[in-house]
């Protein structure tokens, strides 16, 4: 997967036609073969742009920053990224007319060690679902859009669910204890755009300000429930976590429960779909309620 040339051409064209103010893409990080996001504000830097299977970070995250608000932005999105973009559009955080979206039919990206990322192995929507221009061949996985591809349950979730309660409790206690509450997960998540996050507010901090394990538990649980039915599994949070916590467990758990019980589509696949918590069906399971 290498779209470096195409993306450079598109960026050059967009700047030449005066269609955008900023182009968000990837560049080499300058010391090894990994890449970092880059915001390009003019044609002079276009040669920096690259796109390969090392283009990992979800660039939609940059749509919530000062650098892009109220500007015309061009950006590159992979399948998962485009789903988060869809949610940003649905939730009125960005205006579609201000964006020029280069969609990628993503064959999967690799982590720092060259291993294919787990979310790519389990990816159900590799094609970008919102774009102005689509690069690459459509991959069969996009059938999920019509529901013909079965839901893939995350292997870690399945493994943990098998374990006895006490083991799970002990495992997660270590997870929450290892959290240093830097909130990097939140800041790197494209869908955490709130003007002021609930866990930073006075009401919450009054009971929750410390960096204790219990506070980390509260913060991460609340966070994952706020992303339930919205998380697109781009794993920006996990990449950002300095403690390398398996944050995807929480999200994938919610996703699998939602998918299984409410027959919902994957988050952000359908434009206008706000996610499972913002609608209901009379047929939702009722058997867990006395």
């Amino acid at each position, binding site marked *: 997967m290498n779209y470096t040339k195409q993306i450079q051409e598109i960026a050059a064209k967009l700047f030449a036609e005066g269609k955008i103010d900023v182009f968000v893409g990837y560049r080499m990080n300058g010391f090894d073969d990994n890449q970092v996001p880059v915001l390009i504000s003019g044609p002079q830097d276009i040669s920096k742009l690259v796109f390969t299977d090392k283009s990992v970070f979800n660039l939609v995250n940059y749509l919530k920053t000062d650098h892009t608000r*109220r500007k015309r932005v061009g950006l590159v999105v992979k399948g998962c990224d485009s789903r988060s973009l869809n949610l940003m559009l649905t*939730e*009125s*955080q960005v205006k579609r007319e201000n964006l020029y979206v280069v969609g990628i039919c993503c064959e999967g990206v690799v982590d720092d060690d060259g291993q294919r990322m787990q979310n790519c192995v389990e990816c159900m929507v590799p094609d970008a679902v919102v774009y102005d221009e689509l690069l690459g061949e459509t991959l069969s996985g996009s059938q999920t859009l019509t529901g013909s591809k079965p839901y893939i349950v995350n292997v870690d979730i399945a493994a943990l669910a098998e374990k006895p309660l006490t083991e799970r409790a002990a495992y997660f206690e270590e997870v929450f204890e290892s959290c240093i509450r830097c909130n990097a997960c939140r800041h790197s998540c494209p869908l955490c*755009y*709130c*003007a*002021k*996050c*609930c866990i930073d*507010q006075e*009401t*919450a901090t*009054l*009971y929750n300000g410390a960096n204790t394990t219990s506070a980390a538990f509260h913060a991460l649980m609340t966070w994952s429930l*706020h992303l339930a039915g919205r998380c697109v599994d781009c794993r920006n949070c996990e990449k950002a976590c300095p403690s390398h916590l398996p944050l995807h467990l929480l999200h994938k758990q919610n996703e699998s429960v939602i998918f299984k019980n409410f027959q919902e589509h994957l988050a952000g696949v359908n434009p206008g779909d*706000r996610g499972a*918590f*913002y*609608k209901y069906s009379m047929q939702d399971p009722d058997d867990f309620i006395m």
Partner: protein
Amino acid sequence: MARVGVFVCFCGANIADYVDVPQVVEEVKRIKEVKYAVEYKYMCSDPGQGMIRDAIVQHKLTSIVVAACSPRMHEKTFRKALSDAGMNPYLLEVANIREHSSWVHQKDKKAATDKAMDLCRMAVAKSIANEQLHEISVPVTKRALVIGGGIAGIQAALDIADARIPVVLVEKSPSIGGKMAQLDETFPTLDCSQCILTPKMVDVASHPYIELIPYAEVLELQGFVGNYKVKIKKKASYVNFKTCTGCGACWQKCPVKVPNEYNLGLDKRKAIYTPFPQAVPNKPVIDAEHCTMLTKGKCGICAKVCLPGAIDYQMQDEIIEREIGAVVVATGYDMWDPKPYEEYGVGRFKDIITSLEFERMVSANGPTNGVPVRPSDGKVPKNVVFIKCVGSRDEAKGIEYCSKICCMYTTKHTILLHHKVHDSHAYVFYMDIRAAGKGYEEFVKKAQVDTAATYLRGRVSKIYKKGDKLMVRGEDAQIGQVVEVEADLVVLATAVSAPKDNPELARLLGISYDKYGYMSEAHPKLRPVETAKAGIFLAGCTQAPKDIPETVSQASACAAKVCGLFAGDTMKKDPMVSTINNEYCSGCQNCVNVCPYGAIVTDEVPVGHGSKDLRTVAKINEGVCQGCGSCVAICRSMAINLAGFTDPQIINEIVSI
């Protein structure tokens, strides 16, 4: 710094016998914010309220906790006491130590006392976060919408209009009148249904305060009590009512014949028709489904014969909007279809008819000019079997409830049969005879004597054909034997069922309905004409099966409610509504999406102080908000709070024990 006063009630012995009240008071006094705590025999009594009033002034209290019975019982009482002392009434919290402690833990005084202490602590903690709230006043549009033009809708419309409040009356069919217009005589007085109804129908048409919109349906209701906006679809009638004189030339000449709904298909009407001779408005409409001019473009006779030129084949459905303040729902009922009773041969034997069909036959303006006949051969029946509870009180095939009116109308039918066919004999299969009502039991008794009808207590198990007769086999439970009756005609007293459109209407009005499809009242006993949605009222069978007097009473009650609602220029409303903190709102509009009342809209505010850049935030319409808190719980940035149930209040409660 909060200064809380706590008042613990003995409730006579109700609390004091099972909870150590003085100990609760001692415990509560340990809380830092509690500046005054006292116990008393009856806090709700006048001296009890006096104590609250005095303590507020004397101890400069900033919030009050009353530990007594359920807040659903006396919250209003104590709020008033706070008001009287010049304190904002919403600074009150009630700790429910009677229903939630003393009455349910009568065997363990220590546990009940401990729990009462915790409940008090929770109430104190919540009250510290209480804020001053003020009743909301909302302007009112003084115009009512009545949906349904049966006797319920007619009565409600007339009563409201007589109070000089404009009414919009929407009727689905071409004429008002409803089911009552199909009846011959009414029980228990046997006065002619048409004679008492039609004058009212004419009144509706001529009333200066009533706007009658027949042949129309409600499409959409927006807004909130006092300020609704309704969209009404006026179906195309293809006849210009303004120019039509109602002469009748068109329907006399129309060549297309269609089963007549008014007579339940017992005879035919034309494709252009007035439902019945006394219809109001007495103007014909074209049945677009059957008119050959509209379906195939051939014919056009009615337009040719119409001298005023009122026929307009190009007419389209029209959407009209009205601003209204209240709604009366009076959609009536449907007759239950007895198809599931296969063992009776329903559908197979022509001589089995429903009660309403019988009613039409014996009606002087009916298809048979008032004489009951057998549909199979047109002969006048001699032996007629009436079967009651067809569909009613039958969990297996029909509906669980009693339809209430069948006992009475079947009695009436035996009388009518006796009147019309003197040598006839009526047999009545019944489960019970329910004749509660003024003059009802007397009516039944007299009918049994006068008609000499044979009453058989029991269910009919089978009906089969023998020659041109119907053999009705059933059990006479009183003698414990199977009986067989040879009948010329069988009349089924079919159940009353909810209109099939009710659920859809309920959804678009935003009110709830029960499992049968009847609209739900706000309280079965104390608020039987209101719905849970403020400003929407129920009249007649749309709520449950009713007879005419009950329906009329409820309709008049609705009118009284509407008039009461419109008594002032503004309405007062509970201040427990959501509020939005613009600073935290990120404008995702999820709240707009989940609000069941459409109470949330979007607004533009400056990005920062004095900034010209605008961003979108949500905005609550206080008048519409009912205070459910759905939006609060889904707001991720906690920008919304519900007055009276704010996050700090609830969290204070959680962590206080």
